């Protein structure tokens, strides 16, 4: 009997803790937005963060975009040529990249490349009591440390996703047209007639923006909320990557069901 009550109270404790953490995350987000204005007055701070999360992610994003495009080109051609419609290869590559793969894969890479380092940085600043020291000197750590990292991620993410898609289309072109020999004109013209600017490209940008907000928020929050020990920081980094990946995929489903309803 006591084991059952213990188990139930333990479960209740865990649930309570999770909900309290969610509440803190919501409060944290509002605080972040409130102090953003203050941090924008020193915009070079944000530019520095765009450099660290955006520019330094360029290599991994461009290379994986190229490879995803190459694979799509090969696999797509393999299937399409069975139905005698290899000319539609451009459509397949461009639609799957702009609608889904571009935003989602770029966001997953971004979460593991830039999100984790942001969490590590803020977590270590907390562990070495730099955040407390800032507070002592009347420098708000929200405005000085957290907000620039958040906005740096939000600004970088749509740009990185667009580069990923563009690179992927180029990869598909390389495989389809240059190596296999799909007709050059058909590749581009069929792509242009089926890819809609508003429906496909703008929706992809909206998706990547939402993912950017989600990943950056999770990264800065996990860092800020981490237990200030070596172990706590490493756990926070793991949580950032796992939670970001889950959030990206879940949000992608929700956004897709809003954006493409049987069209």
């Amino acid at each position, binding site marked *: 009997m006591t084991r059952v009550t213990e188990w139930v109270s333990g479960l209740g404790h865990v649930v309570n803790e999770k909900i309290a953490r969610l509440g803190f995350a919501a409060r944290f987000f509002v605080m972040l937005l409130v102090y953003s204005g203050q941090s924008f007055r020193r915009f070079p701070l944000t530019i520095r963060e*765009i*450099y660290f999360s955006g*520019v330094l992610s360029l290599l991994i994003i461009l290379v994986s975009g190229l490879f995803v495009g190459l694979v799509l080109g090969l696999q797509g051609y393999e299937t399409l040529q069975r139905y005698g419609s290899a000319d539609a290869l451009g459509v397949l590559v461009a639609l799957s990249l*702009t609608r889904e793969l571009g935003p989602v894969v770029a966001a997953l890479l971004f979460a593991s490349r830039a999100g984790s380092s942001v969490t590590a940085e803020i977590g270590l600043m907390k562990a070495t009591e730099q955040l407390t020291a800032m507070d002592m000197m009347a420098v708000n750590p929200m405005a000085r440390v957290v907000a620039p990292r958040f906005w740096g991620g939000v600004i970088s993410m749509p740009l990185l996703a667009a580069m990923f898609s563009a690179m992927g289309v180029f990869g598909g072109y390389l495989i389809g047209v240059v190596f296999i020999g799909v007709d050059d004109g058909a590749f*581009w013209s069929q792509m*242009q007639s089926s890819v809609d600017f508003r429906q496909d*490209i703008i929706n992809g940008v909206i998706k990547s923006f939402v993912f950017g907000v989600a990943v950056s928020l999770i990264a800065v929050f996990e860092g800020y909320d981490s237990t200030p020990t070596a172990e706590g920081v490493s756990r926070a980094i793991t949580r950032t990557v796992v939670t970001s990946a889950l959030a990206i995929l879940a949000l992608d489903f929700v956004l897709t069901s809003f954006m493409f309803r049987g069209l």
Partner: protein
Amino acid sequence: MNRKLLDLWVGFFVAFGIAALLFLALKVGNLSSANFSETYALQAKFDNIGGLKVRAPVKSAGVAVGRVGEIRFDPQTYEAVVTINVDARYHFPKDTFASILTSGLLGEQYVGLDVGGDEKLLQAGDVIAKTQSAVVLEKLISQFLFSKASDGPDKK
């Protein structure tokens, strides 16, 4: 790293990102072509629209001149009412013939406009009087089979 080099890299990054977006918009998407800025609406009633979808192209002589704006069902006449938005540069005679066609064997369906010889032109909001419904493959096959069955024994 000094401020200037940082700004340079970030500027390069942002410019490259915007270039990628432009590439997607102009080269991959259809922002440059088939963008009808000013349109006027015409209506056409069909017995059966087959698989016609909203935003399907409207073509005359094979050239895209507009897009399907809205498809609804008219409960009075039991017909499908298709609103098509035609580019304001093009005007068609009153006796234009609208039909639902398929591009290729399995392609998407579109509205084809065959121009008549009337002097008067269709104005915004007018209804195209002469229409032809989509060809439904099942009906065609069953018609073919029925005609085969009815004249089959005589020929043998």
